[in-house]
């Protein structure tokens, strides 16, 4: 490693899963018009990069791909402590699919080489495919270390502890490397009034396809999203109440025995 450590973090301005509502008559969610927010795990990714910078120095650059409104996610990252922010945007294609996002990020990395560690959330709150980090890594030929629960930086290398369904692993890779993190890795800080104010004044650099040396067709969609719909919930929603807690409790126990779910 030479010079201060360069940390990148990819963030997504995704659909807000709490505020998104289905149309009552069709049961479908209009994803393109749904309210958006910064994806949850991306906050963990920013937090991890900022903690490394606080310990070792260096810079944290937040990057996002999407329409200009995605700058909100960059403002969040800046308020959490990122130093700089980059928006990759294509007016012709405001919303790219996973392939498009990965190729856009890869194109930025090719034209602006020099990251040491690049953090991603292990999945997004809205789609949660968990593919973007490793996909970018494959595009640019970097190692990808996914599902990190603990990250330590050594001299020019990174040590990652992670958990799989049946195994725990410790793995090491030299810079540059791509890392995805889950929620267990840290508790992201809450931005202060001052950090939010400062973030709102920082410059966000913007790049389009021509500046990144790609043809717009390079990030044409490979998936067609037909519909998003809310499956019906068929629950009884039966309130159990009695004159006092003991009666209520007996009522509930009786109901569960009738259902055959209690011995």
């Amino acid at each position, binding site marked *: 490693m030479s010079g201060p450590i360069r940390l990148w973090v990819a963030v997504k301005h995704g*659909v807000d*899963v709490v505020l998104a509502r*289905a149309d009552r008559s069709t049961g479908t969610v209009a994803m393109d018009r749904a309210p958006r927010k910064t994806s949850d795990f991306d906050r963990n990714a920013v937090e991890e990069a900022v903690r490394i910078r606080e310990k070792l120095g260096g810079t944290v650059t937040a990057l996002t791909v999407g329409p200009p409104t995605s700058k909100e996610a960059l403002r969040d990252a800046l308020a959490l402590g990122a130093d700089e922010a980059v928006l990759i945007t294509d007016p012709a294609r405001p919303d790219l699919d996973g*392939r498009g996002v*990965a190729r856009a990020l890869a194109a930025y990395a090719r034209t602006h080489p020099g990251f040491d560690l690049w953090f991603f959330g292990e999945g997004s709150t*809205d*789609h*949660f*495919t*968990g*593919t*973007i*980090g*490793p*996909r*970018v*890594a*494959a595009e640019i030929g970097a*190692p*990808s270390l*996914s*599902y990190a629960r603990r990250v330590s930086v050594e001299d020019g290398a990174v040590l990652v502890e992670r958990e*799989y*369904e*049946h*195994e*725990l*692993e*410790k*793995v090491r*890779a030299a810079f540059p490397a791509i890392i995805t993190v*889950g*929620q*267990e890795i840290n508790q992201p800080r809450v931005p202060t009034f001052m950090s939010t104010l400062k973030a709102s004044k920082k410059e966000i650099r913007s790049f389009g396809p021509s500046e990144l040396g790609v043809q717009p067709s390079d990030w044409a*969609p*490979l*998936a*067609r*999203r*037909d519909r*998003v719909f*809310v499956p019906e919930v068929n*629950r*009884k*929603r*039966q*309130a*159990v109440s009695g004159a006092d*807690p*003991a009666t*209520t*409790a*007996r009522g*509930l126990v009786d*109901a*569960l025995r009738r*259902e055959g*779910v*209690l*011995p």
Partner: protein
Amino acid sequence: MSGETVLVFSEEAEAIPGLLAAARAAVGPGPGRVELAVLADGGGPAGSAVGGADRVYRLLLPENARHDPELVAVALRRAQEAANPRLTLVASTKRGRETAARLAGATDSAVSTGVASFALEPEGVRIRREVLSGNALGEEVLLGPRPIVAVMLGAPVPAVPPTTPPEIIDVPPPEGAGRIALVERTVKPAGGLRIEAAERIVSVGRGLRKKEDLSLIEELARAMGAVVGCTRPIAAEAGWLSDDHWIGLTGHRVKPRLYVAVGISGAVQHLVGMRESTVVVAINKDPNAPIFAQSDFTVTGDLYTVVPALVRALSGA
């Protein structure tokens, strides 16, 4: 559709029979082919569960290489080139999703993970999967050549012994070493809590005021013959219970016959983990808590009153 090939791959031997069955169902009867790629890195039994595959590619990787998705994807790509499949199907495990993503990046193909169901259609591969943290289902069509699907598998399917031995092709190891060094791998101890298998679960959330009060919840679980589950704040933030108990989007997904949610408001990331339960009970102070809309029986009240009363009612007192 007929006459097409689905290539199946998993790092985990226990996933292979289920994948083979799903692939066979997708190609249908007739001339469709199911081919299988297995890891031969000495890290686990690979060639045993091959019943139902017309051909098997053994990916000869350096010993214990499965920690490096780049090496695995490079090898799988060679099998993919040889099989020329309509679809490459992997299990939507953590390793499976990572391998799928790297393979998609290397081949510039469509990929999706966490897929609940899929079908081969003339235009592409139609998939259905959970989106919006499990609040909704999404339908997509994966277009272009060499699509990759990571599918969610249910309970493991027993392996079928092959009726005729499949053709076996060895795929030589990639040139050069991987860029990720394995420092340590530990297999999680068996016999730990497998909350997915629980028939009844009593689960607790932020309504619980302090760690010591967990004894209340444990008592109720004992009285119901249930295991204790919890939400993310209780496991990941407070650390009152281990991750083995954590139910939700990034925790465990459960489908018990009875799920009792105590002091759980019902954040969407939690609901996705318990939505498949047969009967759901919610106990909460707030009658407007989102969990109530997802429950069969609701009790509005303070858990500190309701839970002890329930324990007494169950013990017949």
